[in-house]
């Protein structure tokens, strides 16, 4: 862009001399307004969580006080102690959710990478049909298949155990779609040169391609973990014994039993939120980068 300010002795109009630099040295009112609005919305976004977090350290009496206080005087760990006491099954709920989420994330990364490799880098009869099917299935509302999915799971004796949670979710169309889009972006020469030298497809996949797809792996792992950790309706349907509940289902019933003891209910909510926040905070850069490269730009 132009930083020339005169031509032929005459000054150019303002528009043609806009400098390339984006951040102006002087702070002008438009910028302050922008930061104000951004900060205001950030507060609006965070306030319920922060307020809930601080209130999870209040006693029952404190939480009913009006006007509500933002910092408990004094704070108490009693709510968390109660939740983790022997009377409640929360440690079991957390374990169930954790197993479900980690297994789903790990399996999705591997299995979706394999499927994405086939869709993205190989030619074979039926490829287009199955890929279009993948895209179509993404649009199907979960409600439609919920009941027969339950009946299928029941027939396979997978209800009320980890299998019923993990197996239907261990490789999803979303993960396959993301992996396919990403794998298409790698140059074709990578495994072709190895295969000319006699390497098999499988070895080429595991030793050459797989180590290169880290951004896609991060996105798929995070989305799968989040989806499994936050899943409510499916675990609600599939699990019938209380010790098999995941954290989300356990929390919903906990609220049913302790409905007006908001301090307890909020402590439970915090336990559900904390692990995800930590994981996302650590990996957010890879997550955003991975989303962008997978082509979710609305085309």
């Amino acid at each position, binding site marked *: *862009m132009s930083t020339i300010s005169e031509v032929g002795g005459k000054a150019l109009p303002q*528009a*043609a001399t806009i400098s390339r630099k984006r*951040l102006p040295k002087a702070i002008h009112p438009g910028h302050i307004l922008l930061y104000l*609005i*951004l900060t205001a919305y950030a507060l*609006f*976004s*965070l306030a*319920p*969580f922060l307020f809930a977090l601080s209130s999870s350290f209040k006693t029952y009496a404190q939480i*009913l006080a009006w*006007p*509500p206080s933002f910092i408990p005087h004094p704070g108490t760990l009693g709510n968390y102690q109660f939740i983790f006491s022997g009377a409640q099954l929360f440690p079991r709920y957390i374990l169930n959710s954790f197993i479900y989420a980690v297994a789903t994330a790990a399996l999705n990364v591997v*299995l*979706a990478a*394999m499927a994405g490799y*086939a869709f993205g880098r*190989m030619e*074979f*009869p039926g490829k287009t049909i*199955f890929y279009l*099917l*993948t895209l179509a*299935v993404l649009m*199907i*509302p979960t*409600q*439609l*298949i*919920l*009941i027969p*999915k339950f*009946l*299928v*799971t029941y027939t396979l004796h997978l209800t009320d155990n980890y299998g019923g949670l993990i197996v239907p979710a*261990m*490789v999803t169309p979303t993960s396959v779609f993301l992996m396919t889009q990403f794998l298409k972006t790698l140059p074709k020469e990578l495994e072709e040169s190895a295969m000319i030298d006699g390497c098999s*497809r499988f070895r080429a996949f595991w030793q050459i391609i797989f180590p290169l797809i880290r951004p896609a792996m991060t996105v798929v792992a995070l989305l799968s973990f989040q989806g499994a*950790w*936050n899943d*409510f309706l499916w675990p609600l*349907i599939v699990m019938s014994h209380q010790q098999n509940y995941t954290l*989300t289902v356990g*929390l919903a019933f906990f*609220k049913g039993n302790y409905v007006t003891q*908001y301090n307890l209910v*909020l402590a439970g909510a915090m336990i*559900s*939120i904390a692990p*995800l926040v930590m994981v*996302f905070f650590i990996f*957010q*850069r890879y997550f*955003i980068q991975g989303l*962008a490269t997978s082509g*979710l*730009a*609305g*085309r």
Partner: protein
Amino acid sequence: MQAAISMKKRRQLRFSRLKLLNALTAYTFLAPYLIVLIIFTLIAIVTALYLSFFYVDFGFTQPIFYGFNNYLHIWYDLTHNGDFLIGLRNSTEYTVGVVTLQTILALILALLLNQKVHGLGIFRTAFYLPAMTSSVAISLIFYWLYQPQGGINYFLALFHIHGPAWLENPATALPAIMLLNIWTTAPTFMLMYLAALQDIPDTLYEAARVDGANTWQIIWRIIVPLLRPTTFAVVALGSIGAFQMFDQAFVMEGASGDPLRSTLTAAMVIYDTAFRNSLMGLACAQAFVLFIIIFAVTLVQKRYIDVNIQY
């Protein structure tokens, strides 16, 4: 002569054998995914349609062929102000409100974050936090905030507004859940808009400025039209999700859509039919009707919103 023909045939055989090997390898890679897809999705869809023609009393009797009676039952329900009609009506009202507002909010947030600001990552994380938490946890937090003596009414009281009993008043219960969901899902769509905004070349803005356009005109005449494919994705995905809202209403108000069925959504009706009344066949029929509605709405949206963009 004979040798030449058989060499050609040999080459063809070797080529088709290679292709067969290649196809087998590909399907081995695909096998786990296809197995899960076929068993838990495709077979499930077919079974859903099949079961909708049966009377199923789960756990008690074998399915009995019922013909179109499930669908006639739905028709009766819809024409006589039954639960399914109430559920569909609530879901429609809910979807229209939520999708409109969250699309606008997502676009505004994306435009705001598309500037060069310090601390972009922090703002983006802060904005995205509501979207990454579970619907149950958020429902619990907002259940507490929406109490008559809770945080939201306290905030309103600072402006001398007397807030209603959000979750107990039939007129405000569904809007309360709507607000909750707009707040929760707008950030996800903000990310989609952000990615699309980054595809718009800066030269377009500069050319417009040179031609004397102000910011408002740039937004309305250039950015919004160029974002139409993304807007279609946001609106379509938003509608599909909103029509199936279940978790928040279930956790905050219970499975009957209190108060006075104002939060009874279509998804909740299907859940009740299947798991409280054990009528799986009828539930499948209801789910199929819901699917047809969602599909039709998506087609209409595609027809009127989506365009092909070329730079």
